[in-house]
């Protein structure tokens, strides 16, 4: 199946930095902006997406010869929605704190374009092991981007680092990581309070989300340019799941403009 004969481990590594789904492919922006108000939320969302992405990639790859081409998108959506429902139930039962933090964005993983995009661009054409590795790599890339954004916004917006980590990890037991439950800068540096240094709450608000994402993207663009790669762009029809049925192709847009 794989014509380029890339080594298998590359399917895993490409998603983490080179084709990072959030910062390079610009997929799943809604969830990225909305839930990254803290590191823990980003991590929780990332873990949920990893589970759904790996499972749906494996199942879709297994079914790739059984699914008729014409109805593949609805079929993919059913597979993805089933796994999202399972994850939703698990989170509701075992980590209710996370369920409250993610709110509507937990069921909305169904329409997260990373998952449908990977199903369409990769899992529908490649072997099971390659698809699982691809899903895992992309999921970790997504999680890494969310955690970075969450860390920044939490630090500037609330003056804490990884606060509430224990409640997320409580599913594994009471004292994971030696009971580490984040750092409150105001406790570590009491001087901050004396100087009446206040966190910039704006960064926790929607506007701060857009701003942080913009700055992060500028930085990654700069790094990518230094390595001779092109900038992240939204109109990357190759990664969009709707490309097959969509008539808003870039060429047509250009024609429209010149007309």
């Amino acid at each position, binding site marked *: 199946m794989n014509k380029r004969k890339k080594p298998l481990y590359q399917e895993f590594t490409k998603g983490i930095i080179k084709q990072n789904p959030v910062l390079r492919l*610009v997929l799943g*922006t*809604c*969830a990225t*902006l*909305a839930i990254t108000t803290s590191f823990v939320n980003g991590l929780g969302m990332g873990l949920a997406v990893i589970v759904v992405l790996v499972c749906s990639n494996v199942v879709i790859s297994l079914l790739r010869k059984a699914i008729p081409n014409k109805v593949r*998108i*609805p079929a993919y*959506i*059913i597979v993805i*929605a*089933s796994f*999202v*429902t399972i994850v*939703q*139930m698990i989170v509701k039962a075992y980590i209710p704190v996370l369920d409250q933090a993610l709110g*509507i964005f937990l*069921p*909305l993983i*169904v*329409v*997260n*374009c990373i998952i*449908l995009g990977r199903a369409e661009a990769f899992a529908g054409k490649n072997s099971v092991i390659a698809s699982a590795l691809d899903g895992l790599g992309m999921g970790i890339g997504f999680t890494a981007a969310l955690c970075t954004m969450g860390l920044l916004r939490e630090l500037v917006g609330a003056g804490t680092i990884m606060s509430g980590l224990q409640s997320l990890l409580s599913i594994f037991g009471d004292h994971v990581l030696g009971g580490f439950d984040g750092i409150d800068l105001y406790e570590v540096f009491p001087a901050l309070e004396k100087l009446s240094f206040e966190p910039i709450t*704006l960064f926790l*608000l*929607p*506007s*701060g*989300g*857009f*701003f942080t*994402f*913009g*700055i992060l*993207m*500028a930085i990654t*663009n*700069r790094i990518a*340019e230094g390595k001779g790669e092109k*900038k*992240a*762009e*939204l*109109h990357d029809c190759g990664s969009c*799941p*709707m490309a097959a*049925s*969509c*008539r*808003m192709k870039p060429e047509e847009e250009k024609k429209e403009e010149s007309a």
Partner: protein
Amino acid sequence: MKFYFALLLMGLLTQNFILAKFLGICPFLGVSKKLNTAAGMSAAVIFVMCLATAVCYPINLFLESHDLAYLQTIVFILVIAALVQFLETVMKKYMKPLYRALGIYLPLITTNCAVLGVVILNVDNGYNFPQSMVNSFAAGLGFGLAMILFAGVRGRIENNDIPKFMEGLPITLVAAALVSLSFLGFTGIIEGMGLM
């Protein structure tokens, strides 16, 4: 009546789908380059949101009466996807002018989190049928308002000299941050008017 007006204001200003709730960011960044495409997309979204709510409301009643509420996510997304496909086919066959205006945006809406989002929010908030419809319409209008405003902002950006590393998406996102910041000014308007 007061509550409906509050819903309308919330959808348009304080709880704007794009600028406060981050639903439908992809079309917001992707299709807001020109005013006419932004307007077309918004009209399609308003239309599909209202239709999806009207269809999903009775379905949800059925699911809840049979203890199947956990199937909501699967059923809603399938209903919306089927609905959009059906709508496209019918429009193509019987409503040519409307299809030319809205048709190209319809496939983009199938996997738009704003549409599924509004349906789930209506259910989560326990709105009854008229409330759900007003909420969906308001959410769609708010989506349109943000899209159209932002299309204007982007027009301005294009005529300016931007630092090279900020060109493209980064400056668009920072501009979105500023638009979102201005919408923050509406906070409290509903309480202030005594609607809630």
